[in-house]
């Protein structure tokens, strides 16, 4: 540093910084290289088949948001329906309260980032977690910003088969920065608002889905599951971190959900709001949804 320390505390911090005993830095470069592939080439343009496959995975992820699980009072959950979606659930893994380190399931992370980079079919948790030492779930949530079907809000308004609703609350929210419209046996819309102070961070995302798909083979163990209501209709609130394992037969995706998710259905559309906000705020946003008055270019 070029500046001179101006007081004892600064001197102490500088000395602390120099004397600090860090753990030895692991070979992160090697691990990342392995994650990205032996030769991390520039992200390739996806083939139509691959794009289709990825879109399918995305739909599955969206379906994941349609889960509603009663408080973990039953050992076996059989069947669940929210909106138009039928979801079969397997027995939930034991739910941990604290600390997260004691939750083996939360350790079993098939890295979402890997899934995002290379959405390989049938990626199982055990295949991707060689570590023998249970550790807290570390891997941040996969970014939503790599979805296929990116479009503009105006185009989405033109082509969506259902009315697109936007939150009027909070007042400073504005229009979504990212819009994704999928058309896989029904349309799925993902609206993303970024954190103004941090464009790498998603402030909140709103998923709107119309479809008739079935999803099978799902396990997860959210630390918090709470029944609530949106506009007087049943809704479910979950708080991460928890693990989603999803499959529709050909594809399996394991994803760590870190945020808070509110799920509800209205007029044959199922909504999923993911954020880091508390329940009351999320419900307030959900209940503020309203059609956009005029299409925005």
């Amino acid at each position: 540093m070029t500046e001179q320390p101006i007081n004892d505390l600064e001197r102490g911090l500088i000395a602390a910084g120099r004397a600090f005993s860090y753990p030895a830095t692991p070979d992160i470069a090697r691990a990342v290289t392995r994650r990205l592939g032996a030769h991390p080439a520039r992200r390739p343009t996806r083939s139509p088949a691959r794009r289709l496959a990825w879109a399918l995975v995305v739909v599955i992820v969206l379906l994941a948001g349609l889960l509603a699980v009663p408080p973990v009072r039953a050992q076996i959950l059989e069947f669940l329906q929210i909106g138009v979606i039928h979801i079969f659930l397997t027995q939930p893994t034991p739910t941990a309260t604290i600390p997260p380190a004691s939750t083996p399931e939360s350790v079993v992370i098939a890295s979402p980032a890997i899934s995002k980079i290379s959405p390989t079919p049938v990626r199982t948790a055990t295949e991707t977690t060689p570590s023998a030492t249970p550790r807290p779930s570390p891997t941040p949530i996969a970014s939503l910003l790599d979805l296929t079907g990116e479009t503009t809000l105006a185009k989405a308004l033109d082509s969506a088969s259902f009315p697109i609703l936007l939150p009027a609350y909070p007042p400073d929210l504005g229009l979504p920065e990212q819009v994704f419209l999928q058309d896989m046996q029904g349309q799925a819309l993902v609206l993303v608002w970024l954190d103004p102070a941090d464009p790498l961070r998603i402030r909140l995302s709103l998923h709107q889905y119309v479809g008739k798909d079935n999803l099978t083979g799902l396990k997860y163990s959210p630390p918090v599951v709470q029944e609530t209501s949106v506009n007087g209709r049943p809704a479910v609130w979950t708080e991460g971190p928890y693990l989603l394992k999803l499959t529709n037969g050909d594809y399996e995706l394991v994803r760590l959900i870190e945020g808070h998710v509110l799920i509800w259905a209205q007029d044959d559309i199922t909504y999923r709001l993911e954020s880091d906000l508390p329940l009351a705020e999320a419900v307030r946003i959900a209940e503020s949804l309203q059609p956009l008055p005029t299409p925005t270019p």
Partner: protein
Amino acid sequence: MNETELIDRARQGDGAAWEILMRAHQEAAYRLAYLLLGDAAQAEDVAQEAFVRAYQALQRFDPARPFRPWLLSIAANLARNQLRAFGRYLAAIRRLVQAESSPVESVEGRAAQSWEAQTLWQAVRQLDFADQQVIYYRYFLDLPVEETAQALNVAEGTVKSRLHRAMNRLRTVIEQHYPSLQEGREA
């Protein structure tokens, strides 16, 4: 080959160039994550994820900008998200640890300098995330003001004012919870 060239090559898909960049900055990313999270395993994961995210965003990165602050900002954001997710647990654990072990007790068997560094770190960890960030950048990772400003995405003047406020708050924390540190400096 300088960093700009390495970034340029990495953007073209040159894995070797990307690896050189990673090796040049992995220690800083890991250390920042460790300071923020206080857990080696989580720090390793966050540092890895930061590089993955950086790689994915490399096409949008301006190679004229320095790489390190950008990478560190990604790592810090990931660490912050991690802390948000586990914030309740960490807060509970932190309170427990603080209540059960006084800094004085951990003096035994440790070199005074190392003890002070560790204890000061514990004091810094009582601050909010933004305060911790600016202190770690400046004093633990030894980033110049310019790079700190880039990592925080603020003006250089803002770094100084944030640092000033963070130091005041740290001083209060030390006075209230770590008086032995104060005595050490006064001695």
